[in-house]
């Protein structure tokens, strides 16, 4: 799967987790721009794991800031 395709799917998964509608792009910083608290990030990871049928290591989250970073790590885990 193309990374950009994963990015678009991730954006759709992120939107319902936001308190108020905020534009999200591949370069959006998940914590600092849309203010996703750590508990919501955890929810997102559960959704990501189910969507792509992967196990996402929590340790890998510390390197993830943007949607693009997340898409990249998802793609790696799928390969």
């Amino acid at each position, binding site marked *: 799967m193309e990374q950009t395709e994963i990015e678009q799917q991730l954006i759709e998964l992120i939107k319902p987790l936001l308190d108020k509608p905020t534009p999200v792009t591949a370069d959006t910083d998940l914590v600092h721009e849309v203010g996703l*608290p750590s*508990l919501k990030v955890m929810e997102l990871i*559960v959704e990501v794991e189910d969507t792509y049928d992967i*196990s*996402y*290591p929590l340790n890998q989250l510390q390197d993830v800031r943007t949607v693009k970073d997340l898409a990249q790590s998802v793609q790696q885990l799928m390969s």
Partner: protein
Amino acid sequence: MSLFTKFEGLAAVGAELARSGTSPVGVPMRRIISPTRAEVDGREVILAGTNNYLGLTMDRDSIDAGHAALESEGTGTTGSRMANGTYDSHLALEREIADLYGMPQAIVFTTGYQANLGTIATLAGPDDILIIDADSHASIYDAAKLSSARVFRFRHNDADNLAKRLGRLGDEAKQCLVVVEGIYSMLGDQAPLAEMVAATKENGASLLVDEAHSLGVMGQRGCGLAEEMGLLDQIDFITGTFSKSVGTVGGFCVSPHAELAWVRNAMRAYIFTASASPANIASSRVALRKLRDGTDLRERLWTNARRLHKALSDMGLQVGPQASPIVAVMLESREQTLTSWHTLLEQGVYVNLVVPPAANLNLLRCSVSAAHTPEDIDNIIAAYQVVANQLSAVKDAETVG
């Protein structure tokens, strides 16, 4: 931007809680009257949020034993278990816990938090894998952070979800430690342990059960959920705490694997901290015997638990999925939870307030004790009825509005 900037959100929540009057965060217990009574905010209240499941904090024999040890061995050990902090009484307590579980050995830690930190973070090394329940206690999350293992979570109490993750690991599952809890501390629900054991064994992984809230509460000898389910011989590691049903402070790990002895002196949370004080150990030993023999206490505890769970559920309050000594009521917002907490206190009942970010839920968390009398439970129910009435009045007003 300063070191403190990141705490602004937390400070705002604290300020909001304080504006409401007595803050539920660290509310001062002015005078302890009994395991179920204290003076809070100038009035005597029923304590219904203390995890004092068997009411042993004021047990006469336990107090006397602590007193005697204080006189004979002093106020503290001033050292690590690995150096000068292992007294005969620490070793005796370890033997007694091992005997209680019918396992070759136990390790005693200074707190329950350290028992999880030491055991989990040390067992799972850089080449290993940790799989934890999504609703795990903070000590398990912190252990996962401290461990250099790869960490995965599975959906709360979902054995199929766990099996899926173990299956993806293939052969690596043999180097995986799965961590579950006997009774979960927020909603009081139990792990489906037989299914968890099956998923873990099938894939060749190891299973750790944290019995913090189920020790003394479940099983004929009070060992916890694994004993209750007849699965003690299927579990690789059990951790627990003395700070709930035992009524003191401390923690432990037991295991059927003799190799646990190799791990002891690699646990940083065991080595780099002072051992528990002699008085604490002496009281714990007595309380543990009372816990083992306390089938009558467990009976009273569960009678109280079932009664309160049913009464709150009948009131239309949203309670946890199964009856348990932890009876939690889920509410919709922080404001609603805070108002209800104050109402309970005004009615003379102290419970725990749980709001984000401590958990992803707004809860009035109540824990019952074997020491609560039937009248205490009547009074707790009556106080919750006032809350239920307030909530439905607000709902009616919203509907009309």
